[in-house]
Each structure stands twice: as structure tokens, then as C-alpha cells.
């Protein structure tokens, strides 16, 4: 199932809502679209056209599914509230100096993280009493360049970010302030995407260096309480920049979105040593789209269901079946 989501423009990101009944997409046309299933096809339920003045780069659903956050090149992050088929803009978060590249809700629903080309990561707290009130509680400047993506740990209050500076940073809260506790070096070019495994013990990153790296939390040295090391590198599989990566919370399969127009799924091999995992290419669609694939996301409820989107403005839904 493939459909054009953002006419004459690129589709940058697509996200399932927590129930898996809706898709939110955003793109270079400055719009956000909400899609619902109608029989065998997807129909646009809502068009949010006036929220941003420039490209909308990413969208993220709150864990409860009632709110949507959108990150834009216009340097703002918009918080939308769902009211039936419509969305109302509750508040606009300002502060970043230039393009916001990502927004992510913590699993608790109380915290939000944003990151930007201004090299910073901002952590915001949602006011429990007032859904319009968001307070910035920390601004962290650990990266030396454009920050591309932020992702929260599935169970702990831990945040990871990745950057044009080729590194991944891991953050924890200390005395009401968020700090970078570990810098993961290894990629040789921009790191575009991050995803935690279902347990949160491992982190996968994808890069312009055409590789995927798997990082595992390990025994920290004296004086630190957080340490991660690279336990696996997947190279030779991707022809160009890997823009996005997603670890399936239901099956543990790893999917990637690549600038060579392909979508790939990797499965973990049975190995004796958890510190030396191995992954094999399980499925590959070389021409998933006619242009770069920007985003890939697993359905939260239905195992094997995947969505991708592309520079050609299209969204495609896939069925992955692990071979017998």
C-alpha cells in the first residue's frame, strides 16, 4: 500500500499513534497530515497547514495518544491536542536559535525533548495541572554541531541524542538538571537516527557513514555511572546514508531507511555472547521508493507491520514476515 502524502514535496517523517489506528506525517510542504485506515486504503483525516512557517521535520505522538508534537525548521515546536478528527494548537515552544530537528515524548508523558541545529538539546516539563504550560528545565550543549535526533529510553528516565558531529550523547538527570553522562564515539560521519531495543539495554544508531552501530550499556569506570560501548557494527549492507532506524518493540527486528531508496530488516542471530551480538539481513526491498527513504517505523501493536516515507512524498506500508 503506497500513497502520495505530501504533493510535490518530500515526506520527512511518519509516526503511528500509540494505538496504531492513525499515522501522522509531515513534510517540506510545511504541513502535517493525519491518516486513518478506510478499508484497504489510507485516507487523510486532517490537514494541519498553518502551524509552521517552514518545513515540518518530525512529528511525535504523546504516550496517551491525545497530543501531537511537531518540530520545524521555523525554530519552533508545536503542541497539538486531538479533538475527534481535528487538532488544535495548544502552545508553541520557542527558544531554539534555528531549525528544530526532532521532538520526542518521554514514556512517562511528563517530559519532552527537542534538539536543533543550534547544537543544543532542550528538556521540557509538562505542567500536570495545565496542559498549555511547558517549562524548559534544561538546555544541554554537549554536541559541537547540529543535533539530528533525540530518543527516550523505554523504561528509564534517560535520553540519547545524535549529531552532525558524528557522536551519540546519553543524558541523565542530576539535581533537577540534565547532563550528558556519556559520549559514544565511533561513527565516521553524521549520525542520523537512534533507537533503543525493547529492554532498553541496547541502542542502535545509523549514520551517513553507511553503517549501523549497536551500543550496549557496560560497567562504568570509577567516577562515572553511565558507560556504553559499541558491540556490533553492520557495514557493507547500505549503499548510501542510513537516515532512520527502528527496533521493533514486539519482535526485536531492526529496520532501516536508506538513501539508496531501500528498506532493510535485520534479525539478531542466536549467539552465545551477549556482548558480541550478530545481526543478519533478513529482508531487503531495494526500490522501496523511487527516492531516498527518510523514515521507518514499526506498528506498535501488529507485529511485522512497517511504515516508511520518502523524498518523493510517498508513504508505504509493508508486511514483514520472518522466514521459517
Amino acid at each position: 500500500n503506497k500513497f502520495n502524502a505530501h504533493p510535490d514535496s518530500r515526506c520527512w517523517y511518519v509516526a503511528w499513534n500509540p494505538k496504531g489506528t492513525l499515522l501522522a506525517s509531515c513534510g517540506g510542504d510545511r504541513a502535517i497530515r493525519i491518516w486513518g485506515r478506510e478499508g484497504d486504503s489510507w485516507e487523510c483525516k486532517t490537514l494541519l497547514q498553518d502551524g509552521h512557517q517552514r518545513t515540518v521535520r518530525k512529528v511525535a505522538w504523546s504516550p496517551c495518544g491525545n497530543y501531537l508534537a511537531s518540530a520545524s525548521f521555523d525554530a519552533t515546536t508545536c503542541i497539538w491536542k486531538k479533538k475527534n478528527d481535528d487538532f488544535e494548537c495548544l502552545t508553541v515552544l520557542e527558544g531554539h536559535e534555528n531549525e528544530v530537528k526532532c521532538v520526542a515524548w518521554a514514556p512517562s508523558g511528563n517530559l519532552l525533548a527537542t534538539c536543533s541545529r543550534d547544537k543544543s538539546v532542550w528538556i521540557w516539563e509538562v505542567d500536570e495541572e495545565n496542559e498549555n504550560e511547558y517549562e524548559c528545565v534544561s538546555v544541554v550543549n554537549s554536541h559541537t554541531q547540529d543535533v539530528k535526533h533525540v530518543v527516550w529510553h523505554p523504561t528509564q528516565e534517560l535520553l540519547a541524542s545524535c549529531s552532525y558531529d558524528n557522536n551519540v550523547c546519553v543524558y541523565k538527570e542530576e539535581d533537577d538538571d540534565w547532563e550528558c553522562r556519556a559520549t559514544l564515539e565511533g561513527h565516521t560521519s553524521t549520525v542520523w537516527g537512534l533507537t533503543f531495543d525493547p529492554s532498553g539495554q541496547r541502542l542502535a544508531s545509523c549514520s551517513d557513514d553507511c553503517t549501523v552501530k549497536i551500543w550496549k550499556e557496560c560497567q562504568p569506570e570509577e567516577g562515572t555511572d553511565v558507560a556504553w560501548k559499541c558491540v556490533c557494527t553492520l557495514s557493507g549492507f547500505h549503499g548510501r546514508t542510513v537516515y532512520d532506524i527502528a527496533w521493533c518493540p514486539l519482535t526485536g527486528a531492526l529496520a532501516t531507511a536508506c538513501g539508496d531508496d531501500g528498506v532493510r530488516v535485520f534479525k539478531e542471530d542466536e549467539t552465545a555472547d551477549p556482548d558480541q551480538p550478530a545481526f543478519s539481513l533478513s529482508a531487503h526491498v531495494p526500490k522501496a521508493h523511487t527516492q531516498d527513504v527518510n523514515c521507518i517505523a514499526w506498528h506498535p501493536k501488529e507485529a511485522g507491520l512497517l511504515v516508511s516515507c520518502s523524498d518523493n512524498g510517498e508513504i508505504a506500508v509493508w508486511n514483514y514476515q520472518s522466514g521459517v
Partner: protein
Amino acid sequence: SSLKQQNCERLQTAKDEDEDVADPIDDREIFDLIRSINDPEHPLSLEELNVVEQVRVRVDDQENTVGVEFTPTIPHCSMATLIGLSIKVKLLRSLPERFKIDVHITPGMHTSEDAVNKQLADKERVAAALENSQLLEVVNQCLISNARTS
């Protein structure tokens, strides 16, 4: 294992029934697209300044790749990123969508070669830059074709 488009019996390839069977695109054709781009500072084209040369254009029509090396006039040229961006934009606007376009500085010809190349290769940075109306205007000025060239 299989990865199939949902609700399709077989994988559909990109629709191209409407596309005419065209001659493969070659180096000369790419060069013709970029040779008359204006230098941002001097009233001369990139070809006249030897910033672009046909020999530094590499096209692979089968693989859908285009590579252009450009040589800034001086190693500290502050316009290098802008020139590279103009070349990239001209090609993005002129070539079929299937092409992957790589524009970089001729190796060894600029002091900030790696930094400039990295920016030009980052499509998110390029997209954001082109949403800046002032920068877009400067790029468009470089791309205005001159009456004397065809």
C-alpha cells in the same frame, strides 16, 4: 523471510509507463547544465573561471549517480559553499528525480574542503538553507542564465 507491500500480491516497481525512453544522460549534458552558472562575485561563469570542467563531471546513468567536482578560484575562497550549493540546486532542479547528486570540492583545492563537502552532502542542511529567502535569492542570481550562452 519476506518484505512485501501490504495488500499487494507482488512487489510493485515504480510506475514509469509514462516516461519516454530517453537517451542516457552523459557527462557533457551535465556540464552544459552547470557551465554557465554565474560566479557570485565576478561577472564570469564557472566555466570561464575554470571552477567547473567537463573532465570533473562523472555520470553513471545506469546507477543514477552524478558526481561534480568543482575547483574554487583560491584555496580560502569564502564563496565555496555558495558555489557548491548553486551547482547542486541547478542539478536538483534540472535532472530526473532518480539521480543521486554529489557535489564536492576538487580534492586538495580548499582549506575547508571537508567542512564544505559535508554541508553540501547533508540534504537536510541544504533544504533548510534554501528556505532562507535571502540565501535562495543569492543562489537564484547565480543561476540566472545569460543571453550570450544557450
